[in-house]
């Protein structure tokens, strides 16, 4: 590769921007915000677009559906909250699938394993039978999912059987297990959450229950200030000690975007969205999704475990030679994948108000993979983030919601979703190929 090579470690800013290499994130070479913007533009021209396509896609979806939706209801407060709730299951399942995808593996069983966990939680809280407290029921459901993931992961990592096969078997097995679990108790296969029982109502309200507006504003402010302070002081410290750090302007922009997102979400949620009476406030599903996002982002990007997941996805042999217990890391990844799927399907149960054999476990797997990939996670391992699942989940949820508002039937929704997935992956692959022609081929 004939790149201009600067003569010392303390990079020369002008050379950095002139030679703006496609493969190097601009925040590494830019000293000022203007340089960053130019380097970023050069990078996009070279095909390294990061989350830009999915953000552009989201904006396009919003604009198009707002224009064509009847009475322009797409961007109404009620529909936006509804859209987030519909997308939540996709987002959480996509974050689950991210663990498998980062390793270069796939987990086809997330839909039905998660559904089993949800059925367990819903069954255990029933006042007519077991009457478990809501938190214990959720914990039992998630523990079941984690155990299943650990078994599948062990078979994949220790016996070396392809994850596609193991989790395909899991997909079938847990479809059956779910049906058996559903038929337990006197509910004819339809255990219900919409019961006047405060314990059961907690589960019922995970999705739609709202947080008091005052509390939402305070919580949002605390989160934004905390994150902002963390980013600001972290970057500031790195700049002072001469480490690689983004320009001040970029740090400020990031914090501003986080603050704006927080304010918009809370403001929209606090608009009365009921046709009759009042329905306002941030639904509980928002902090739940953010909690999963925050936890998995910290795990993947700030801990040794997360570093090893990326290392194995990038070069498993190198990871093994570095002394990493590859089998253990992979097993735990499948465990976390299944457990997160349990969270997703418990949210689904809350949305539906119970569990039944109508769960589209197979479809959910495919949407989870699609959401992660649309968001920017690689199918080939080593590249991806939890936030990609959230963004991709919003895209799929947005398409679903928008076409539903148009009164389109499910077959057309499938076709459009499929085309969007194909387009997203193709744009990514083609731009990458254009960028890397000449240099070493990368996936």
């Amino acid at each position, binding site marked *: 590769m004939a790149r201009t090579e600067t003569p010392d470690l303390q990079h020369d800013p002008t050379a950095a921007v002139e030679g703006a290499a496609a493969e190097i994130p601009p925040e590494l070479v830019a000293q000022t915000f203007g340089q960053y913007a130019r380097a970023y533009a050069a990078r996009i021209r070279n095909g390294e677009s990061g989350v830009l396509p999915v953000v552009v896609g989201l904006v396009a979806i919003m604009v198009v559906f707002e224009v064509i939706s009847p009475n322009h209801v797409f961007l109404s407060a009620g529909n936006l909250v509804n859209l987030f709730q519909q997308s939540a299951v996709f987002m959480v399942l996509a974050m689950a699938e991210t663990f498998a995808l980062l390793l270069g593996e796939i987990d086809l069983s997330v839909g039905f394993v998660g559904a089993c966990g949800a059925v367990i939680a819903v069954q255990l809280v029933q006042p007519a039978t077991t009457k478990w407290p809501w938190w214990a029921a959720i914990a039992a459901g998630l523990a079941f999912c984690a155990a299943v993931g650990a078994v599948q992961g062990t078979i994949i990592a220790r016996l070396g059987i392809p994850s596609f096969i193991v989790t395909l078997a899991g997909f079938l097995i847990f479809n059956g297990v779910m049906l058996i679990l559903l038929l337990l108790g006197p509910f004819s296969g339809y255990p219900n959450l919409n019961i006047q029982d405060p314990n059961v109502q907690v589960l019922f309200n995970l999705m739609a229950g709202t947080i008091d507006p005052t509390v939402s504003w305070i919580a949002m402010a605390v989160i934004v200030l905390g994150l902002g302070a963390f980013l600001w002081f972290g970057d500031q*410290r790195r700049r002072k000690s001469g480490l690689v750090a983004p320009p001040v302007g970029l740090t400020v922009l990031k914090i501003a975007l986080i603050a704006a997102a927080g304010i918009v979400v809370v403001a929209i949620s606090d608009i009365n969205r009921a046709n009759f009476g009042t329905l306002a406030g941030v639904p509980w599903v928002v902090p739940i999704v953010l909690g999963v996002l925050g936890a998995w982002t910290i795990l993947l990007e700030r801990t040794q475990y997360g570093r090893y997941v990326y290392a194995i996805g990038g070069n498993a042999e190198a990871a093994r030679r570095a002394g990493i217990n590859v089998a253990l890391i992979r097993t735990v990844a499948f465990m976390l994948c299944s457990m997160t799927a349990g969270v997703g399907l418990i949210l689904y149960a809350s949305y539906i108000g119970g569990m039944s054999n109508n769960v589209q476990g197979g479809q959910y797997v495919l949407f989870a993979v699609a959401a992660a990939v649309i968001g920017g996670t690689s199918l080939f391992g080593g590249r991806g983030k939890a936030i990609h699942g959230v963004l991709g989940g919003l895209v799929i949820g947005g398409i679903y919601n928008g076409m539903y508002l148009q009164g389109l039937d499910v077959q057309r929704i499938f076709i459009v979703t499929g085309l969007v997935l194909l387009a997203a992956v193709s744009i990514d692959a083609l731009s990458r190929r254009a960028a890397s022609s000449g240099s070493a081929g990368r996936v």
Partner: protein
Amino acid sequence: MIADSTAATEPLLKVRGLEKHFGAVQALYAVDLDLPAGYVTALCGDNGAGKSVLTKCISGVYQPDHGQVFWEGGPVHVRSTRDASRLGIETVYQDLALCDNLDIVQNMFLGRETLRRRLLDEDEMERQAAKTLASLRVTTVRSIRQPVASLSGGQRQSVAVAKAVMWNSKLVIMDEPTAALGVNQTRQVLDLVKRLRDRGLAVMVISHNLNDVFEVADRIAVLHLGRMAVQDKASAFDRQSLVEYMTTGSLSRTSRQSAPAETS
């Protein structure tokens, strides 16, 4: 005894009578090898001579069937690459064992991350990595936070070497470090090898490339069909005699007068 004037003091690593077989195939026969500190030893030999097996026996990947390895004068059993690392033996593999998707700092600390309150201490790792790279004068990378995928072949080799020497290693084994590199890149890597020697490390370079061997090696050891054909200081060889040792395991009569004594 080994006819070698360069190894005046006790060598850092001494291999005596090492044997290794895989099933019916005998890969190494009673191999002796000395790797003194402050010298670059080139390990030469044709394909299948046993260079890789010998390297892997030293670095803990394989366990020898017979023979003894001495480290700083004392007998040691290297049962794993972890054991080797603990002694101060680091191997730079031909495929470099780098993760393309991770950046330079992340690769250099892979498997030995610095933690602070149970989270990764990126600042400290970056400082250490920068220090090591600067001390090796690996200065052509644009940013030590760029992914390894964006580096040239020579830069990748430099990162792999820096990764190996960061842990106070005393012996660095490099497998074909210049294979697949261009002229400039090869120069970078050979200069790096010399700097390691000047720091007092023992370096063993496995190479097919005679230009590189004569350029950096202080000592040359030649394996032929699993036996140590000869090892001596580099000045005792010329291209012709080295090629002859590599291909036949000995010198023909005509050139024997000027050739060094063979090992027992």
